[in-house]
């Protein structure tokens, strides 16, 4: 059976700068796969290439065996791929449930419908997703007024309303407190009942705690890939992180 997400030899350059140089990874079914690396390693670029926000210069991306390389975002969503954003991008004017319902409605193919229709099913699905992620209490709150941690979870809720097979999470714990991080970590593990997850993260604790596999990138290339145990003991990885930490100290 084809793996949910397979990336082979992905390349991306910005002019003379080669940001991603032959990156490959494969996500197991129902797994949490983390992509980590120091700042500037190219993780976000890989992410944007997979999710259709950047056009790769080479390589291929396969979703359940289907070649989706360089597909635009909306087609990827239809094919079962959804993503969140590192900088929270919810529709601030709308309430929490309306944000999720918008995605649910989009998923049910109603985007082009030009006559009004009671959005019953979409609302129901939205509530179900919010329930699953523990946000049901705040359904009627204005999205902009949520606490930062809840906003990040709303991002995930919006993506889940699209019923993806593969979920791409872009630094979901960015700016979160320790408690909120634990909470979202548990939520992510819970999501694997429904989909496979690719995670870009900085928080090593979370990564080691919830990942089934980890891929480590530095300077546009993969230097290690495997189980959390194997990767954390890999001398190359330690050097890359240690080296990065030293550089930041300077």
């Amino acid at each position, binding site marked *: 059976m084809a793996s949910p997400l397979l990336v082979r030899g992905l390349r991306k350059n910005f002019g003379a700068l080669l940001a991603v140089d032959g990156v490959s990874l494969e996500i197991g079914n129902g797994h949490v796969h983390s992509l980590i690396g120091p700042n500037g390693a190219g993780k976000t670029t890989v992410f944007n290439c997979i999710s259709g926000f950047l056009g790769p210069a080479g390589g291929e991306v396969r979703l359940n065996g289907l070649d989706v390389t360089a597909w635009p975002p909306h087609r990827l969503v239809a094919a079962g791929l959804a993503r969140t954003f590192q900088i929270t991008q919810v*529709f601030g004017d709308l309430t929490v449930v309306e944000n999720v319902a918008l995605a649910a409605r989009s998923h049910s193919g109603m985007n082009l419908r030009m006559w009004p229709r009671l959005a019953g099913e979409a609302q129901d699905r939205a509530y179900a997703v919010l329930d699953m992620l523990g946000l049901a209490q705040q359904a009627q709150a204005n999205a902009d007024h949520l606490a930062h941690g809840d906003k990040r979870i709303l991002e995930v809720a919006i993506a889940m309303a699209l019923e993806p097979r593969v979920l791409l999470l872009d630094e979901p714990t960015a700016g979160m407190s320790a408690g909120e991080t634990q909470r979202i970590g548990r939520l992510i593990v819970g999501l694997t009942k429904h989909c496979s997850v690719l995670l870009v993260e900085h928080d090593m604790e979370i990564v080691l705690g919830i990942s089934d596999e980890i891929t480590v990138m530095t300077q546009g290339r993969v230097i290690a890939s495997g189980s959390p145990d194997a990767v954390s003991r890999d001398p190359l990885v330690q050097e890359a992180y240690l080296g990065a930490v030293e550089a930041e100290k300077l």
Partner: protein
Amino acid sequence: MKDEARARRLTSLLIVAGAALLALLPFVGVAPFTITLLTEALIFAVWAMSLDLMTGYAGMLTFGHAAGFGLGGYAAGYFAREVTGDFLASLLVSELVVLPAALAIGFVVTRLSGAAFAIVSLCIAQVLFQIAVAWRSVTDGMDGLVGVPLPTLLGVTVHNGNQLYLLTLLVAAMLCLGLRQLVASPFGRTLGAIRANADRAAAIGIDVRLHKWLVFAISWAIAGVAGTLMVFMKGGTTPMSLHWIESGNVLIMAIFGGLGTLFGPIIGAVAFVFLRDAFTSGFAVWQLAFGIVFVVVVLIFPSGLAGVVSRSWMLLWQARS
């Protein structure tokens, strides 16, 4: 959801009631000249609403909205003069010209967004202006298209004055109702998502380009209807109907009234027509006043008049509770 449907029905009722009230005006002693101004205001209102759809709801600012308006006017006017002044036939011909043009031009232009889209829209309108000036054999150039006959509806001639007013009112009310339904539909809501954050919209599966293309075409089509009404009202048209000054006029109507509200532009159109009439003293003064109002509105009242009203209303409401 029930509330939504009820709110929608209420708004539709309001529109019908408003139209009925307006329809009574000629029969309660309102001066004929005011009726004429109102006719013009209603035509502009239709045009401004079509702009609001594209700019207020989909977030696509355009400086070239005179294009659909002028093109529709020329097509309808030429047909009415050469073939028949039947209103429905002229309207059909107008749309048969405007829609394909909008679809073709929109396909290219909706690749852009923001300031780029606004300016290229201006260029398109200017090109149409140049064509109207150059294509003398069809448009009579700068002299303008004249001799457009009175429209006939189902065989009955529609005279200037009350009859044309009522016809315009009918068309405007129908389009207003239609647009109200459109913006309340999933399509309308998707437009709002695109306006708020196009990348986010794409990430939830919305085909942004397709939606922009469709709203572009619909907006032009409705502008074409306004243009058709105008050419019948004036008995002709000139290339000035395609000029960027006209595009600026409709823009200020929509902005002043309030973008994204659908009713705001109606208020803006009425205000514009009556104010311009009051300013007949000089074109220079009008341009000056127009510019000042424009700048003030953008700087201080970004949500337009309707925004001021709705914000005051909200403040009052909060003060009460």
